[in-house]
């Protein structure tokens, strides 16, 4: 998986959690929280969906790494790929 694909997977999750938000112009380097109305509970939902849909565990200490799309891609892409290698 490329970083772009990873960002798409994250956007797909956000669009389910927050169907009322416009996600077409998300800036990858800006904190999601500053562009969307997401609270800490919504981030918990993102973490839960990552686990349910993709089998990816994000420990609580790493939540700050999900701040922006870029940081998500940086942090999650190796996890997606690690999973692909294992399976």
């Amino acid at each position, binding site marked *: 998986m490329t970083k772009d694909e990873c960002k798409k997977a994250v956007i797909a999750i956000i669009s389910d*959690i*927050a*169907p*009322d938000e416009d996600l077409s112009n998300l800036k990858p380097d800006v904190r999601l929280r500053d562009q969307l*109305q997401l609270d*800490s*509970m*919504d981030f*918990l939902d993102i973490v*839960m969906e990552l686990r349910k849909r993709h089998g990816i565990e994000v420990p609580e200490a790493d939540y700050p790494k999900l701040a922006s799309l870029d940081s998500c891609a940086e942090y999650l892409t190796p996890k997606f790929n690690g999973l692909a290698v294992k399976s």
Partner: protein
Amino acid sequence: MKTGAHYDVVIIGAGLSGLSAGIRLAHFGRRVCIFERHNAPGGLNSFYSIAGRKFDVGLHAVTNFVRPGVKGTALGRVLRQLRLDRDELGLCEQRQSRIAFGARGGPALRFTNDFGLLESEVAAVFPHQGGGFQRLVSRVRETSFSPEAPALSAREVIGEYVGDPVLADMLLCVPLFYGSAQENDMDFGQFALLFQAVFLEGLARPFEGIRPILRLLVDKYRKAGGERRMGCGVRSIVPREGRVAALVLETGEEIQADHVFSSIGAVETEALFAGGDRAGGQRPGPVAGRVTFVETMAIYDREPSEMGWGNDTTVFFNDSERLEYAVPEGQVDVRSGVICIPNNFDFGPDRRLPEGIVRVTCLANYDRWAGLPEEAYSADKKRWFGEIQASARRFQAGPGAPGTPAAAIASDMFTPLTVERFTGHRNGAIYGSPTKSLSGLTPLSNLHLCGTDQGLLGIIGSMLSGITMANRHVLAPEA
């Protein structure tokens, strides 16, 4: 005694709050089971059929309605956190509602889902109160409903802004009738919440009433992997060292759970482990509410608008000099109440309800209805039905009103005893205990309240109550 399953979470009651908590928890992978002693879900917001006709029990209108794109609202949070599609709820907006004080000719304030109408009505009917009203509205907008907020009397706060007692009563009347477990007053935080839900947001209804909402929630819950045991209540909770150690079901089966949510009311929940008495008595326990209602439902072969009801969706009426929101001495107080006309939601040009429905709710006294012999109970219902209908008709304002009363083709009436049966609330107290537990905490550390006695009311409010409590006590306890 048989020892049964172990769940991550057990929920008592399959009403809107219990189902919503269940969806949230099951979605997060928790092993959840809801126990409901009735065969149908919904609790207060359930429905029943008589001769093939479906009657909703609680639902007048869904409050908290906002149009798509409005952010940061209760409805938005419910849709998000339960992963509901707004269209699945199929909410249709009200046409118009009124607060009518004094029968024909008395002051009346119309309101719709556009707040501007109420503002201009207040300015027109109470010309000297406009500024105070605006400042009160600002205060309401700034008020958030939190467990940390100090308790304030809504009457006192309104009085700081609005000098005219009639306007003060008119503004208080809607939140009182739509959610106060307390007589003649309510907590200002709760007033603000209901004021926002009704006036700043708005009223709506699914075409088919409560049933599609319940279907949707039950379906979501099942798909998320939640279990449900209908027709199976919880008989008692076994406490040990300040925690729920086990639950004993009505079947005698014993089950265990890490967390228990109870939507059945604060007093009713404590009775499950204290045997009705408070052990030790060091801590004042929750108090059972006494505010309850009767409601008449009349079905007609024509639209209510043809019988003098015009476009009114709900009418909050009162003809006393000062509004008295209290348990009446007699069985019913017909001087004030709420009229609801489900036909007058805007279902679109091609849809109308098959029959006309007029519902009227009035304050009632539980003790005067309880313990009556069957015959007297039926006779009293019949007598009050007529009186309530006649009282309500005085507040018609549509063309041709007051209309000739058409003969109802069917009717039903519920009393405080009916409410008690559906909700399990003592005294048939629709809005539960006058003291709410906003944090959801109980004397047992892993037992949490959700629903009416947690303090969020209405259809959207109860769903939000289940969601918030699930988040706060299980999913994100540190957040």
